[in-house]
């Protein structure tokens, strides 16, 4: 049955519209303003057209930050998705205290403030006082100093990200698994299906909807990541773990280069907008059950 058409519904939406417009449209227009002007001080500014955009599009630091960002998001998906599905498969399916305890423990990292996530990993990875850092450096005898070795900084940030967000993939996949009716498993047992066949032909297709959401959420959120790597590595050593948001904040607040930062922001926002559209389409299909 179709929902009734009634434009008076706008009255109910108006407060939300006003509030989000206040927070989103005014700042966005400020950014657009910056991106087409050269600002010297409060009174001296000249219109420069698309100059900042041209400069930013040729900026090699932006290119490398964008490259790092895509590499990071791809790594995150490659690690978190299979791992999360694997964890969901071994989580207890029936109710009871063990299930509750597992859910609570798995979800715990998701509720920790993001800078505390960074702090947790700083004290875990430091070679002098951190358990893992000390273990690698002293017990395994591999020189470990993540703040100065780019490769180790990368591994550390990816490890932290996987630790932080794999639980989300696991919980989503688990929600998908729990929704499979027991009759499917009974039928599979009667047919003598192997464990792999059950996974490949029953569980995986039934998880398609939730896994679509998991992929998109993880991609989007890892694309916007700022606080955790900032606390852990500060974007360094050098620029080696400077992702898009970290570079943008360096540019806007650190160097107060508002013209470049404005143009960068608009470009960044447009990428996110395009990705959001893909996300929206996928959500709509999951909502109507087509993807299930």
């Amino acid at each position: 049955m179709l929902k009734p058409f009634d434009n008076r519904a706008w009255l109910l939406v108006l407060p939300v519209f006003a509030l989000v417009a206040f927070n989103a449209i005014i700042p966005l227009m400020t950014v657009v303003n910056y991106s087409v002007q050269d600002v010297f001080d409060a009174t001296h500014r000249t219109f420069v057209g698309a100059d900042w955009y041209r400069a930013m599009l040729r900026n090699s630091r932006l290119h490398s930050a964008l490259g790092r960002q895509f590499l990071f998001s791809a790594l995150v998906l490659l690690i978190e998705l299979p791992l999360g599905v694997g964890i969901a498969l071994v989580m207890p399916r029936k109710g009871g205290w063990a299930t509750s305890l597992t859910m609570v423990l798995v979800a715990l990292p998701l509720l920790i403030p993001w800078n505390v996530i960074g702090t947790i990993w700083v004290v875990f990875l430091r070679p002098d006082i951190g358990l893992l850092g000390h273990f690698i450096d002293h017990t395994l005898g591999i020189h470990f100093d993540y703040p100065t070795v780019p490769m180790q900084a990368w591994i550390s940030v990816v490890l932290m990200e996987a630790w932080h967000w794999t639980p989300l993939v696991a919980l989503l996949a688990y929600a998908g698994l729990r929704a499979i009716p027991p009759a499917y498993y009974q039928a599979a047992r009667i047919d003598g299906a192997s464990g792999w066949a059950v996974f490949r032909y029953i569980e995986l297709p039934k998880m398609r909807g939730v896994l679509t959401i998991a992929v998109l959420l993880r991609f989007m959120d890892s694309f916007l990541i700022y606080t955790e790597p900032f606390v852990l590595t500060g974007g360094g050593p050098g620029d080696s773990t400077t992702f898009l948001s970290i570079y943008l904040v360096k540019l806007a607040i650190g160097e107060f280069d508002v013209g470049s930062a404005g143009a960068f922001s608009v470009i960044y926002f447009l990428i996110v907008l395009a990705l959001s559209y893909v996300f929206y389409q996928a959500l709509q299909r999951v909502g109507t059950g087509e993807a299930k």
Partner: protein
Amino acid sequence: MNVRWRIAALVAYLVVLMLPIYWMLNMSLRDNYDIMSQLALAPLHPTLHNYAVILTDPAWYLGYVNSFAYVSMNTVITLVVALPAAYAFSRFRFVGDKHLFFWLLTNRMAPAAVFLLPVFELYSTLGLIDHYIAVALAHTLFNVPLAVWILEGFMSGVPREIDETAFIDGYSLPRFFLTVFIPLIRAGVGVTAFFCFMFSWVELLFARTLTITEAKPIAAVMTRTVSASGLDWGLLAAAGILTIVPGALVIYFVRNYIAKGFALGRV
């Protein structure tokens, strides 16, 4: 055999998951000299000194008070505006509804870094910097879209016949909404409130930028301590542990809805 292997894998994962948190807990129970002098798997001389410092020094504990203040304000504002909007999206079609719904989503996905400087200027112009309300309002940028999406998911699970019956019985829309409909979706309201609380609690970028001293969140108080020359790891760890406590306390009640909340009400 198979079951035993599964349990072993699960337990191994949970141990790995808890290890970094345990390590911080371990540090929070030791003093700084003890931490720097040797690596110990468990506190040999456990002390609650670090927690005592935080809970008695206003510069520390006011950080928690500030965080709770703006997080609660944000949750209330978000729910008040999101409930009617979610009802509209769930029950009616109207001009531009799909575009509006999509636009809300883009704000949940918007990078905070893009909005940082202009949001700071906006709230400076309004003279709201360093007030709770500034952070509470700025966090509605991503919390209101989230709340509308989650609530819409819950509301669409309630059959529309209930609304129609109530209207035939002579209920007005506001009265029906407050006395019949909200009680029906109270689980959804609770879950939404939890997620608003949580996302406002874990966010730092806006909260730090929009505050100076009076409304500084605990997370920012911690950052300041890290950059100071005399670094007290025990104190830092204790402050970190205390920021985990609120989430850990309520997580049990929402455990079955966690996936739904993170997936914008779409699981």
